[in-house]
C-alpha cells in the first residue's frame, strides 16, 4: 500500500465517522424532549466538566511543548504528533471521570467500555508494536497506535482498580 493510499484510507475513515456523528447529533436534536434524558447526576456532570477542563489545558500545554520540541529537534511529526496530544488529553479526561465515579451513568456497568477497550488495545498493539520495532517504518500514525495502546492499558487498569475499590466500599457499607 502506498503512503498516499494509506492516508486516503485514514481520511475516508474519519469522514465516515464524522458523518455518522453528525447524523446522531441531528437525530438527537430532532427528538428534542423525547430524547433519552442525560443519566448523569449533578455531581457527575460537575466532575465531567472539570475533567474536560483539565484535559483541554493539558492538550494546549502538549501542543505548545510539541511545537517547541519539534522546532528544536527538527523532527516534524505533523498530524501524528497532534493526534498523540488528543489521545493523551482524552485519556486524562477519561481517567479522571472514571476515578471520580463520573464516567458511567446509573444504568451502565462499564462492561461494554471494558470490552471495547480491550478490542482497541489489541488493535493498537497489533498496529503499533511492529512500528516501534521496525526502524524503517515511515508511517507516523503507526507509532501513535502504540502510545494509544499504552493509554488504553492505563484506562483498563484504572477501571479494574476502581471496580475493586467500589466493591469493597459496597461491602463495608452493607456491614
Amino acid at each position, binding site marked *: 500500500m502506498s503512503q498516499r493510499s494509506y492516508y486516503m484510507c485514514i481520511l475516508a475513515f474519519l469522514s465516515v465517522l464524522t458523518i455518522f456523528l453528525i447524523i446522531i447529533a441531528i437525530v438527537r436534536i430532532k427528538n428534542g424532549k423525547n430524547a433519552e434524558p442525560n443519566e448523569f*447526576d*449533578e*455531581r457527575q456532570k460537575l466532575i465531567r466538566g472539570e475533567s474536560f477542563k483539565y484535559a483541554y489545558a493539558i492538550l494546549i500545554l502538549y501542543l505548545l511543548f510539541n511545537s517547541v520540541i519539534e522546532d528544536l529537534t527538527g523532527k516534524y511529526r505533523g498530524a501524528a504528533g497532534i493526534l498523540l496530544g488528543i489521545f493523551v488529553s482524552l485519556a486524562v479526561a477519561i481517567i479522571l471521570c472514571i476515578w471520580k465515579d463520573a464516567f458511567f451513568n446509573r444504568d451502565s456497568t462499564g462492561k461494554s467500555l471494558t470490552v471495547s477497550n480491550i478490542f482497541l488495545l489489541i488493535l493498537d498493539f497489533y498496529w503499533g508494536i511492529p512500528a516501534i520495532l521496525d526502524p524503517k517504518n515511515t508511517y507516523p500514525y503507526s507509532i501513535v497506535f502504540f502510545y494509544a495502546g499504552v493509554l488504553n492499558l492505563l484506562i483498563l487498569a484504572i477501571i479494574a482498580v476502581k471496580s475493586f475499590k467500589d466493591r469493597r466500599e459496597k461491602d463495608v457499607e452493607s456491614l
Partner: protein
Amino acid sequence: MKNLKLKSARAAFDMSQQQLADEVGVTRQTINAIEKGDYNPTIRLCLSICHTLGKTLDELFWEEPSEKE
C-alpha cells in the same frame, strides 16, 4: 464535614446507599460523597432526599457555624 445525620436517617429507614440513590435518582457514589462530606448537593437533591427519608432540610443538612469551622 461528614453528614452523619443523613447516614443515621438512612439507617433508620433501613435503606442502603444504593436504595436511597435509586429513589432520588443519583448514583450510589453521590450519596456516599454527600455522607462523607465530599460533595455539597444542590437544594433540589437535598429536598429529594428529605422527601424520601421524611425529614426536613434542617434535620438532615443544617450545620451550626461552629461545626462548619
